[in-house]
């Protein structure tokens, strides 16, 4: 066990855990930030996606020892009132079915738009193909990303 300090959603926090503990489980088990989901544990499904210094990463593969002293944003901190353009677009298109993968989808989508505010269909497909949606909401996810892109540009 070791003490780590970490900035999550703008708050400086410290946790005392095994250094190999993935950020995912620090978030869920220790900080009770459960919006970040466990899906596969091997970076294949994208359900655990968070922003690491602004970049989308799979938190199941990021040990706390490597995450410490960096800036992490989770779905809970993406916006103050759930009104990030991507979240609003998700509501407008009523994207979710079961909803389990959607936090990860939103974190991947918001990171995409951060670096590429006007993505092509191809850009969206490439950026979003690491996030599995078992319910098959992909066409709505794409439409929502385009809406969010339009709202940001406008």
């Amino acid at each position, binding site marked *: 066990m070791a003490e780590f300090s970490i900035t999550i959603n703008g708050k400086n926090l410290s946790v005392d855990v095994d250094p*190999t503990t993935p950020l995912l489980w620090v978030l869920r088990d220790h900080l009770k930030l*459960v919006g970040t989901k466990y899906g596969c544990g*091997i970076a294949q499904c994208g359900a655990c996606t968070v922003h690491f210094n602004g970049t989308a990463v799979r938190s199941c593969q990021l040990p706390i020892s490597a995450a410490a002293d960096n800036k992490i944003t989770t779905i809970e901190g993406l916006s103050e009132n759930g009104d990030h353009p991507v979240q609003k677009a998700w509501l407008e298109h009523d994207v979710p*079915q079961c909803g389990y*993968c959607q936090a990860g989808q939103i974190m991947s989508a918001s990171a995409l738009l951060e670096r590429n505010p006007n993505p092509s269909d191809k850009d969206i497909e490439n950026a979003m193909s690491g996030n599995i949606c*078992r319910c*098959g909401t992909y066409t709505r996810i794409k439409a929502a990303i385009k809406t969010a892109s339009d709202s940001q540009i406008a």
Partner: protein
Amino acid sequence: MTKVKTSLGRRSFIKSVSLAGGGLIIGFNWLACKGPAEEGSEELAMQMPDEWFELNGYLKIGDNGIVTIYSPNPEIGQNVKTSMPMIVAEELDVDWNNVVVEQAPLNTEIFTRQLAGGSQSIRQGWQSLRTAGATARQMLLTAAANQWEVPVSELSVENGVIKHQGTDKTIGYGEIAKAAVNVEIPEEVELKNIDNFKIIGTSRKNVDAKKIVTGQPLFGIDTYKEGMLIAMIVQPPAFGMEFKTMDAEKAKGMPGIKDVFTIDTYPEDMEKEWSDVAAFSKLVVVVGESTWQVMQAKKEVKVEWDLSPELTKQIEILEKSAGMDGVSGLESTSIHASLMADVGSKKSEIVRRDGNPEKAFKNAARVIERSYTCPFLSHNCMEPMNFFADVSGDKAELLGPIQTPEYAELSVNKRLGFDLENIDIQMTRMGGGFGRRLYGHFLVEAAVISQKMGTPIKLVYSREDDMTNGVYRPAYHVTYRAALDGNNKLTAFHVNAGGIPESPLFANRFPAGAIDNYLAESWSMESNISTGAFRAPRSNFIAGAEQSFLDELSEEMDQDPIQFRLDLLDRAASNPVGEENDYDAARYAGVLKLARDKSGWDNTTGLSRGVAAYYCHNSYVAQILDLSVKNNQPLVDKVTCAVDCGIVVNPDAAKNMVEGGTIDGIGHALYSEMTFKDGVPQQSNFDTYRLIRHKEAPKTIDVYFIENGIDPTGLGEPPFPPIQGALANALYKATGKRFYDQPFISHMQDDLKT
């Protein structure tokens, strides 16, 4: 308006339960509801009231007019938590913006069929949900009439405000609810004419959407309670094996680990429910403070496994009867394939026979015969199996994702010996179901573990545990034969279907009833591998196979594939063969025609497109799929879906369901399989088990609904089966090659394999 009895008495339909607060709960038989919206809904325009009046078991009205509607059934992503309360709200006549939806707990005293399965929620709940709303509405009206001393017939309601025609006096539901509680439950209520619907048939957003997109705790796996420990399991590495001994000393000494022990979830003398399907009863359990610690400790438990003697028997018999060498209880996909191809059809039983098919085949000028197969599939709900349990003394509190809470309660009752009233099951929103969470062994395991530990625990399956301890979609095999005479006319049709461990045959579905000489046969084989319902059970294979065969047949007969089907349906409608045909030929033809028109089928040039249509779960779906193949990768450009599920309660959400079912069907037919070698699942996570991804999804999916005012039927499953046939038929157009064996990607050119 339709008058309905509030229940053939009210004994079977409404149960009155006195509330501590002096209110009245009426328990309606919401036969198959699935879920409500929650407090904090963005659409909630008003503040929470000071006082609630529980007008009946499914709704309570606040003194300010806010209405809470409870949804008794589990929500697995089919969106019933929104659509079922919409139906109540419609008949209650309230403003949807003033409705809050809450998930009801398991309560068999008030609710019946608290189950998510068979696409039955809306269909079976329709009348009861409407009656629930209408009954409360009538009680409110009666209370207002009493207060004003006027006849009820002079009152009208709009958006929760009652108005007296003569005096223009008005009163809100919130103001009269207290008096309405004491009104006698009416024997008979009037339901709205469907032309007067204001909520049903309009698109309403998912009531949980805001919570979902902001990451609020909604799912079972999000449960964290004071003093709760994390439990995980170590299970046999292969189907057909069982626990022998273990050395857990090292694991027990690891940081955060509280205990390592074995459980026997289903002792041999326990009376099981149908939902108690589990391949492995004896499991090693590791309990600790945090998930990561338990995951690490799991790796350090040294377990010896044995061949399970009782499980080996069946397959020995099978293999001997097959004349195959080698006897083992450890099954392999290669053995399954040869057993299904060579042995299965020899032990068939006739399920339906019309005319004289044998003679027709004997006299045929040509016989076309094709066989189709599919592999086992894992459900792969994105939220792995999990459940919270707090068992102490003679009480059990259970919370988590379960499609069959009623049956799970009985299982816990039998396993722990607790009285039903001491078993409390709370349902969480589910991160997918697809049939997997019908089988609640994980709930029973959690209860047994909590009892043994004497603490609250949350049992969590790793992805690998989830995928390799499945209740899989069975493997199926079907052979179709068609007899053609010298004029290239279809004279007989033969289907021989089977699988491990069940047959996918529906003998009375199309094209039964459309062909004079018809033979349907069925067979099955036992297996060690646990199987169960998977989205659209049996239909999920046989629809695609049948629709591929009909496509090939129409080509052999030189007919347009849609017209060929329509001609058969015309025969089934005008002069049906036999009396037990399970479908309505006119509605079947209706979706085909709608898809044909909307897709511009008759003007198709240069497109690789395939069509399929199917009837299951009381609904009709036709799909036309356009694709191209580049570098041996199919790219689906567009799918046109035509659906007849009667009245569509929540159109945009229904469209979402059809889109999702279409993508899911394409994905599984193209990419997914669960294979076995010596009993060991060969796929254990998403690096080896392929699910369809964003870039592989259709670019466009157009969905059209038939408008016919017929009472609504299922939608969660029907879009899934036919698309597999449309896909195979389009692939043929693109490649010149027929695809008979799923997953199709394995049969694209070898150098094109991914």
